[in-house]
């Protein structure tokens, strides 16, 4: 009965419904999804609009707060990575760890001082010999280049050109004993447990 009343009202006001038969109920608004349903609640239009505005504002405020927090964190200085070699673990500073050895006798300390003096002299002579050898090397090369220049400028230019293939220069150093032919080293796996820090 309600629907029919509504129908008549709608028929009188809407112009598009003039060609439709009287009996078919019209769907005047989208709140009534099925044609046979009775409208049970009033269409609430004003409330959703308010929700949207407040939502948008709240969201924007939240975003700004997050951005400010991020900026604060970025401005703070980055945490320094600890150098593990410089921090002695506490278990090594316990008193039971201290070595008990007899004290140094005066003869021993005298011997040590004299040995250190002999060592510094030895190292000085070694260093001087090295420098002399390097100087002789450089002199010999300079003489060779001088003679080469007297011979031909073209060969000289080719000689003083930088050798690109020389560096990086790699060489394995000498060991105490020469490599044993046919030696089979024991099998094993090396697991790296170094801690990696990120800033």
């Amino acid at each position: 009965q309600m629907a029919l009343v509504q129908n008549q009202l709608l028929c009188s006001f809407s112009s598009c419904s003039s060609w439709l038969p009287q009996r078919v109920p019209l769907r005047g608004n989208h709140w009534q999804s099925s044609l046979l349903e009775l409208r049970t609640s009033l269409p609430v239009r004003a409330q959703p609009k308010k929700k949207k505005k407040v939502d948008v504002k709240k969201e924007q405020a939240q975003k700004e707060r997050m951005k400010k927090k991020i900026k604060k964190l970025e401005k703070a200085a980055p945490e320094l990575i600890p150098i593990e070699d410089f921090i002695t673990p506490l278990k090594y500073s316990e008193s039971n760890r201290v070595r008990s050895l007899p004290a140094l006798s005066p003869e021993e300390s005298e011997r040590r001082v004299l040995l250190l003096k002999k060592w510094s002299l030895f190292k000085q002579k070694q260093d001087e010999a090295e420098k002399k050898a390097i100087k002789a090397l450089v002199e010999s090369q300079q003489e060779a280049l001088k003679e080469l220049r007297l011979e031909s400028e073209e060969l000289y230019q080719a000689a003083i050109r930088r050798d690109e293939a020389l560096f990086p220069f790699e060489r394995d150093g000498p060991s105490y004993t020469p490599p044993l032919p046919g030696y089979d080293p024991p099998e094993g796996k090396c697991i790296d447990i170094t801690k990696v820090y990120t800033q």
Partner: protein
Amino acid sequence: SGAAHRPWRLFGAMCLLRLPRITQPLEKEEEEMAALMAQIELEKSHYSDHEIRKLEEEKQLKRRKESLYDEDEAPGKTVIMAQDLEEKWEQKFLRFKAAPRITDADKSNDRTSLNRKLDSNLMLLVKQKIGNQELWLLPQVEWQPGETLRNTAERAMATFMGDHIQAKILGNAPYGIYKYKFPRAIRTEDNVGAKVFFFKAFLQSSDLSQAKLKADHLWVTKKELGDYLKSEYLKKVNQFLLD
């Protein structure tokens, strides 16, 4: 530059060095100093975990010997002591035999072998015919127009050692020069003498079985060079050789 006629003939020579494979023995001062350093390090150090374990086990053993009640110390259970571990490690080390530092070639003084004098540099010497003399020299070859002197030296190396030699040549510049005048009989206006430019290279490959050595060759140390080279030549070569 080919128009100007030069009175000197140019040669490129290669000084091929086999670098040392083992460390040189320590001098007396170095050994004394090494011992002192080890002693000071021991004095300044603290006990390690292994040493603490060893000390505690010694104390336990002492207590066991002195005390009469040793039943509460885990009867029937064999415990590995730190001392046992050390002995086990020592045994394992003694069982390993390293290669000898003084090789057979050293003992027999076989100068053609590369396995001699592993703690010093070895240089290649070849016997070449200069004029009408057979001389021991660093391998050398005459320079040909169109190549750099470094190429000449490489060619010299390849001529005497074959193509499969891996050597790292140290730069484009010569290391030394030996200048000599021809004897008066051969000397002319355009052919006064020769200049030999030396280049240095490090031998990379240790296996020379593939090398076809065409002439008599020797591998000698700096001290032994005097046995083979003439005095003037030796003086110039010694200048650019580091012992």
